[in-house]
């Protein structure tokens, strides 16, 4: 008698099909093991938006009655395995469906497993992850996050590799044989079966102790009741912005305290303040008003508000002045401009090195086809 639950945390639109493939395959494979299951997306996420963290679930039970018992709570409050298909979401997720920042491991049961697709090492990932009171395991499927848009699916075997790893870390959920058979039947088999098998063999788990994890960022809100809520669906405007500090000049726009956008970001803009010509385009075009105008007339992207869409990079007329960089490189949302003010040489060196390194990166942030698709686009154009 047992019911097992798996959640897949994914980036809305960009990874929707990936998440769907994973949860559906779990249920198909469980059927082969004589179990029953269900797969569904969180309804509150359903007006899905580009990059905004979202969830899908797979619930597997021994018999229909047991499945019904577990579905009496439609949205699982704890899961045996959390699968995170973009490592930048280890920093926590602010979804369309809830308020605040949810730690990536919030639903992972004591003794459960967090699987992350990443090229980072466990310790580096744990720097990003919130500590938990109970022990669990961290398991890494090595690779870059598989990103594509709404109309394309990046068939790079991420789905089958995650499924192979899942069989290893949670054998009571589904057997490897059943999973390989499912992949053969549902996903075209061939090299995919080999990929799943290899991932199974290579996957290990690193125990995470209670309290382990470097992310202390909390963002929780109490929802008002009907007696204290404003009537007539009225939301007060955010107070207007103002100077950096009194008398300093510059302009910081007003921003919401209860709604941030940073967990949508998988890449962030890094600014070269030395080559900036103050043309205003990034500030003007940013859809989230996330650029602060500094007292010296430069533009500093506020990392609490930036969703990582890359428009600033696209409109900037100066080469390498605004560059989108893998979000995994960062552990905080601090101001780049303030760092540059304090230590220009230090900042400039860090920034130029990072920009050079990024040029060799294959990461894409999904909003437009850069990085990960360069080769594919070239190949398609050659045809």
């Amino acid at each position, binding site marked *: 008698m047992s019911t097992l639950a798996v959640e897949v945390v994914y980036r809305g639109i960009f990874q929707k099909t990936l998440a769907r493939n994973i949860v559906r395959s779990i249920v198909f494979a469980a059927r082969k093991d004589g179990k029953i299951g269900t797969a569904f997306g969180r309804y509150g996420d359903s007006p899905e938006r580009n990059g905004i963290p979202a969830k899908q679930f797979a619930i597997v039970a021994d018999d229909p009655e047991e499945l019904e018992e577990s579905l009496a709570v439609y949205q699982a409050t704890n899961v045996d395995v959390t699968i995170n298909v973009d490592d930048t979401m280890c920093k926590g997720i602010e979804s369309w469906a809830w308020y605040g920042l949810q730690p990536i491991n919030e639903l992972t049961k004591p003794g459960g497993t967090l699987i992350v697709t990443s090229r980072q090492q466990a310790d580096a990932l744990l720097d990003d992850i919130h500590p938990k009171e109970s022990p669990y395991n961290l398991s890494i499927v090595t690779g870059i996050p598989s990103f594509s848009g709404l109309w394309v699916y990046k068939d790079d075997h991420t789905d089958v590799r995650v499924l192979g790893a899942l069989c290893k870390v949670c054998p009571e959920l589904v057997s490897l044989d059943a999973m390989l058979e499912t992949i053969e039947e549902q996903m075209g088999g061939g090299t995919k079966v080999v990929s799943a098998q290899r991932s199974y063999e290579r996957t290990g788990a690193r125990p995470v102790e209670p309290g382990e994890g470097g992310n202390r960022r909390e963002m929780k809100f109490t929802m008002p009741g*009907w007696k204290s*809520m404003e009537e007539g*669906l*009225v*939301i*007060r405007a955010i107070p207007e912005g103002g100077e950096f500090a009194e008398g300093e000049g510059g302009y910081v726009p007003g921003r919401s305290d209860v709604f941030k956008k940073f967990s949508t970001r998988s890449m962030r803009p890094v600014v070269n303040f030395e080559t900036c010509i103050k043309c205003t385009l990034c500030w003007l075009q940013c859809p989230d008003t996330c650029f602060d105008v500094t007292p010296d007339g430069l533009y500093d992207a506020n990392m609490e508000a930036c969703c990582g869409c890359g428009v600033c990079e696209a409109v900037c007329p100066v080469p390498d002045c605004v560059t989108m960089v893998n979000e995994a490189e960062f552990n905080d949302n601090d101001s780049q401009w303030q760092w540059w003010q304090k230590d220009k040489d230090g900042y400039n060196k860090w920034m130029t090195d990072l920009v050079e390194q990024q040029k060799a990166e294959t990461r894409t942030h999904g909003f437009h086809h850069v990085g990960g698709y360069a080769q594919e686009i070239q190949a398609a154009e050659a045809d």
Partner: protein
Amino acid sequence: MTTTVPTDMFQQSTEELISGSEAIAIACALADVDVITAYPIRPYDTVMQYVSKLKADGAFDCDFIVAESEHSQFEIVKHASAVGARTFCGSSGVGWFYAFEAITVTAGLRMPVVAMVGNRALDDPGAFGVEHNDAMAVRDLGWHLYWVATAQEAMDIALLAWRVAEDRNVLLPFAISCDGSFLTHSQAIVQVPTREQVNRYLPGYNRHELQLHPDNPITVAPQVNEDWLMEIRRQTDEAMRRAVGVIYEAYDEFKEVFGRGDPSPFIEEYMTEDAEIILVGMGTLAMPTRVAVRRMREQGKKVGFVRVKFFRPFAVEEVQNALRGAKGIAVIDRDYSYGSPSFGGVLFHELRSTLYPLPERPLMLNFIAGLGGREVMVRDVNEMVETIEKALETGKIEQETTWINVRE
């Protein structure tokens, strides 16, 4: 906001021979409504004709917008109401239904739009006679819903409507239901009050902290997910509960300022005191019913009549008290609810639910009458009473719902 043009109209109280539609149009002028939207559909369109004439005659000034459809018509007043404009609009039958996307949200956003519903059949090709199903569609949506019986009442309730709807403790829209033809197109003697009286009775509309204005920067109606909707519904529910008290207060003051009105704003009782059989109905069918009751009283029958005026909010206790002690209740519905319990009408179910908690429940029968504008006549009412008398005598209900004056 528009300003009132100087006019010598309404300096004196006058007596006019006007229809229910004209009466409401005059109420618009007296209440100095700011934004009025219109789109023609019979029988509501009589109101828009009279309103535009009053504006042209200089009786009052307003933004009079003829929209390109009912949907826009109701959207415009909803938005105008958000910035603090007193509003009026209306429609009939399927026109009213076409505006429903706006109509449903108007209550949730707490916009005190006042609308006249010229009751009309739901358009089985071209039908435009009275039927109550059109207005009934807002009964669950947070709208006040009132059925008037005379042109005088139409004017009086219109004035009360802005007073109640715009009360800060309420802020809910108000539908004034008027039977097509019998009310909208029939002229009767109406006492028109002075502007001074109306100004005394009706304060300006002020949304206070909910007003959409550059000095009060707010967002109205953002995306609402499951995190918020129950709280919003509960707020609307509470506002409707508060409306009951506000209506009593507003009605008392109405009687004081204008010197007329019934004992209760919610129901009209006619010869109910010792009645063993009480008929219940809404709107203009009150007239033939009262005549029938009077005649039966002359024959020694203990019969009475209760007219439900406010269908929403529904005055449960008042109705219970009025009907308590009667042996039989005959409910006349100028509407229907296909497939409902007893295959009956909407008012019938509401009354059965109202009377269920009474220790001694009366026998209840439902009569579907006057659909699509067919007249409800004295002999129809007699037939209803005879039917219920027979049921009381035998203690047997042959059928709960009877269609009156229908060809077989």
